[in-house]
């Protein structure tokens, strides 16, 4: 890769290209779309967590003046099993279809049953309430223990266990059991002098993006579909609509709006095919459907509740000899929890010679789980890093010491197979050791407010994937850069910066725009921490090609050979004798051969994995169980930071979500499977008052595979927080929290139980 010190654009902190639109309210998000003649959709959702649908009577709704169309699951084409990869995990399209409108069975509270379109939202809402559904209520299965019990009723008659690669015979709620093995785990534990074995539980949490899902769809008389929606991946939406409705992709144009957060929850379709069917039935009028917050929490997202058992063996000198993991994740109503990713994360930071990991993907009557930032990683690391903290204490070792002693390095093989290339895990540990947060002592008290410090590490794979982009050199010297990657947090600018660096122009001369699926080549979704890495690489290649072409044009104007021309500081130069400014070359493109338009597409590899180590100070009020975060420092191997402020922002945001997951967030269901906290008052995400400033320490170990050393940075920061906070709570109170979230009530119960146990 290039010499970092020579960079002119990379490493600076320019204002984002879409910034003015976003601070003035002009940027158009999903719900801001308005098509001429549009009508409004509303969904009817199941009031039962599990029920057979005996009949649906839509006649009263259809009779309401203003109602233009009504659809149910019967309007969806029958589908065969087909697996599609969204970049953050695979999805079975038949299940996706049954998720967006139920077939014969409602599988969770809030499962969509029918939809209405009407001339106003008020009429649509009234009409949805007029749809009569006859249900046969079935007992819901609401947790892993019930779902995995040998005599449990199966949610789906056609799901059998994929048991270590062999298809089972009887229907089961365990959709898959897989195993990763390395070495000889029995021998590893036989060689251990200290063994720690623990079991952890975690609750269901939601991505919590502030923008509810919204889609506006028009089914034209010529069979062409126009789809405006807020999505992480417009091409994924196109292919999912195509599969679910049986339309050729050439009939579907997806126009992505600005997106108000996704975190994995806006990869798959929920509303788009439903709005399409409503539009077709309404004679081609555009139909807009926007979810309420209740709909978002009840029927989209969440990520899995889990039970994770971790067993470590180590010698007295702190060397890990073996690890065994059993992990079961709730998939929700359809198979596909992130347990596979969780199994790759859980022990990844450590070089352990003997490992067995068993993973289970388990169905239950909750919404279909979806990707959430480093899917499956936070709960996995909470379990593994809590157990490692206990092991370190049993060995009388410090938390950094035990991690350094066992740290994975270049050449270490993960239990799930791959061998690490150059990674920066050790560097994150060393960065913590150097940081004033670590080197300064924590002031402690024996009163009701107990302080403690915790450390945890985390890993995320990152993803490369396919990106395409196109650039046009304008006569005034600016370059229009056309991309298909959803800009969810500043990627227009992080991509434009790499383009500007490659071509050799200032970043404010680049005009990046995110366009529809008919206007740019294929792009995988913005997910897997891939966009700055992969789309940035694509535009690097485009920049190099344009640079070469501009040098050829300048050579013509200078009446010399391209090999004699250099381009530095905005000037093409033929030695010391003659030079010509960049703006003159671009102004004269017509005279030197015509416009310059360059497209490039590539399936990127070599994404480079990410590691992070976090340190947190907490204060636990032992009279109320409330935990305050006093200080938080996150060190992370970020490869090479293109826009350091945006990298810091990714780390700070990931940490904040991790803190919410650790301390407060969880779905609460009643015994019938009704979600009791489907709103932001009771599904309590962190506010400004709950968090301190978050110190993001960028450790730069450039990724040797990327032209600018980029590694994905967005996901790994959510992996360590829950483990770090659990370790800090133990440090403060001597009580080990075995379940997330570590909410005041749960902490208080644990503190009281520990006090009673101590008194006996």
């Amino acid at each position, binding site marked *: 890769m290039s010499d970092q010190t020579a960079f002119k654009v990379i490493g600076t902190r320019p204002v984002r290209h879409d910034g003015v639109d976003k*601070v003035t309210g002009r940027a158009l998000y999903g719900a801001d779309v308005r098509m001429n003649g549009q009508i409004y959709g509303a969904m009817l959702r199941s009031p039962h967590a599990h029920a057979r649908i005996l009949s649906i009577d839509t006649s009263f709704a259809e009779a309401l003046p203003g109602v233009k169309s009504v659809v149910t699951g019967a309007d969806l084409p029958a589908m065969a099993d087909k697996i599609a990869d969204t970049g953050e995990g695979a999805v079975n399209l038949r299940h996706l279809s049954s998720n967006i409108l139920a077939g014969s069975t409602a599988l969770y509270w809030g499962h969509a049953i029918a939809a209405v379109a009407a001339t106003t939202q008020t009429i649509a809402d009234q009409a949805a309430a007029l749809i009569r559904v006859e249900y046969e209520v079935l007992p819901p299965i609401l947790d892993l223990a019930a779902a995995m019990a040998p005599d449990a009723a199966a949610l789906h008659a056609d799901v059998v266990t994929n048991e270590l690669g062999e298809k089972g015979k009887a229907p089961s709620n365990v959709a898959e059991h897989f195993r990763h093995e390395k070495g000889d785990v029995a021998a590893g534990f036989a060689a251990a002098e200290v063994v720690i074995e623990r079991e952890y539980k975690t609750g269901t949490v939601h991505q919590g993006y502030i923008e509810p899902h919204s889609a506006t769809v028009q089914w034209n008389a010529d069979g062409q579909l126009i789809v405006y929606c807020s999505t992480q991946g417009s091409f994924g939406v196109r292919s999912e609509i195509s599969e679910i409705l049986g339309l050729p992709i050439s009939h579907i144009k997806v126009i992505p709006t600005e997106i108000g957060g996704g975190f994995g929850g806006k990869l798959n379709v929920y509303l788009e095919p439903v709005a399409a069917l409503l539009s077709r039935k309404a004679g081609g009028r555009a139909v807009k459907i926007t979810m309420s917050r209740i709909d978002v929490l009840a029927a989209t997202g969440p990520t899995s509740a889990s039970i994770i058992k971790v067993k470590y063996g180590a010698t007295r000198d702190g060397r890990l000899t073996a690890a065994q993991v059993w992990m079961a994740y709730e998939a929700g109503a359809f198979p596909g929890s992130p347990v596979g990713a969780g199994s790759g994360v859980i022990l990844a930071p450590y070089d352990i010679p003997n490992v067995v990991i068993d993973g289970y993907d388990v169905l239950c009557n909750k919404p279909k789980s979806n990707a959430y930032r480093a899917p499956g990683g936070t709960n996995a690391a909470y379990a593994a890093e809590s157990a490692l903290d206990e092991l370190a204490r049993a060995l009388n070792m410090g938390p950094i010491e035990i991690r350094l002693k066992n740290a994975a390095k270049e050449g270490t093989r993960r239990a799930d197979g791959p061998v690490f290339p150059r990674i920066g895990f050790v560097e994150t540990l060393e960065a913590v050791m150097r940081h004033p947060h670590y080197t300064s002592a924590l002031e402690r008290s024996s009163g009701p407010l107990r302080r403690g410090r915790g450390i945890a590490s985390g890993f995320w794979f990152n993803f490369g994937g396919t990106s395409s982009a196109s650039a046009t050199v304008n006569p005034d010297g600016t370059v229009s850069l056309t991309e298909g990657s959803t800009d969810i947090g500043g990627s227009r600018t992080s991509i434009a910066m790499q383009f500007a660096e490659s071509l050799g122009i200032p970043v404010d001369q680049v005009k990046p725009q995110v366009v529809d699926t008919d206007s740019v080549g294929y792009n995988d979704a913005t997910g897997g921490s891939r966009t700055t890495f992969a789309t940035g690489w694509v535009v690097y290649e485009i920049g190099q090609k344009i640079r070469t072409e501009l040098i050829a044009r300048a050579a013509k104007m200078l009446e010399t050979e391209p090999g004699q021309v250099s381009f530095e500081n905005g000037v093409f130069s033929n030695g010391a004798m003659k030079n010509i400014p960049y703006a003159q070359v671009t102004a004269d493109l017509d005279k030197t051969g015509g416009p310059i338009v360059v497209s490039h597409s590539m399936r990127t590899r070599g994404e480079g994995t990410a590691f992070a180590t976090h340190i947190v100070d907490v204060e636990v009020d032992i009279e109320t169980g409330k935990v305050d975060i006093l200080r938080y420092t996150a060190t992370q191997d970020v490869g090479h930071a293109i826009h350091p402020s945006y990298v810091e922002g990714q780390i700070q945001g990931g940490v904040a979500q991790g803190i919410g997951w650790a301390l407060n967030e969880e779905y609460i269901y009643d015994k019938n499977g009704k979600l009791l906290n489907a709103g932001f008052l009771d599904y309590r995400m962190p506010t400004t008052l709950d968090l301190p400033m978050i110190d993001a320490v960028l450790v730069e170990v450039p990724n040797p595979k990327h032209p600018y050393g980029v590694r994905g940075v967005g996901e790994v920061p959510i992996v360590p927080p829950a483990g770090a906070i659990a370790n800090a709570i133990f440090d403060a109170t001597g009580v080990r929290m075995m379940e997330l979230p570590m909410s005041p009530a749960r902490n208080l119960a644990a503190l009281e139980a520990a006090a009673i146990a101590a008194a006996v």
Partner: protein
Amino acid sequence: MSHLVVNSTVNGEPAEFLCEPHETLLHALRDTLLLTGTKEGCSNGNCGACSVLLDGVLVNSCLVLAAEVEGRQVTTIEGLTPREGLHPLQQQFLENAALQCGICTPGFIVASKALLDRNPHPTEAEVRHFLAGNLCRCTGYDKIVRAVLAAAA
């Protein structure tokens, strides 16, 4: 359904509009007056994305009925933006990279203006206390708080 006629002042200009009796100010702003800078995140007063000023006081427009603004002054993010350039809060949000997805940003800027109008030099604690009614899921608030402090400096 019968509609009500409402006469108000929105962003300094007279605004006469029709609304249904149950309609919120948020929906009137977005769907009738086409001021979509005010965002809907929850519609029950818990996220602050729909923050506007009503006679200079910060409110969640999802909790105000449209009919209630008869004779009153409403300021939205569109009205906070000067004719030329940007409001200092808008400028500082950009320079401090205080937004990622941007959906909460108009609400945060309106709420921050309400804070600075009554407390031009807040401490970090005062900023955090005042903005606790606005949710952001992307930033962890660090850079938002810094932007507000910078705008107040």
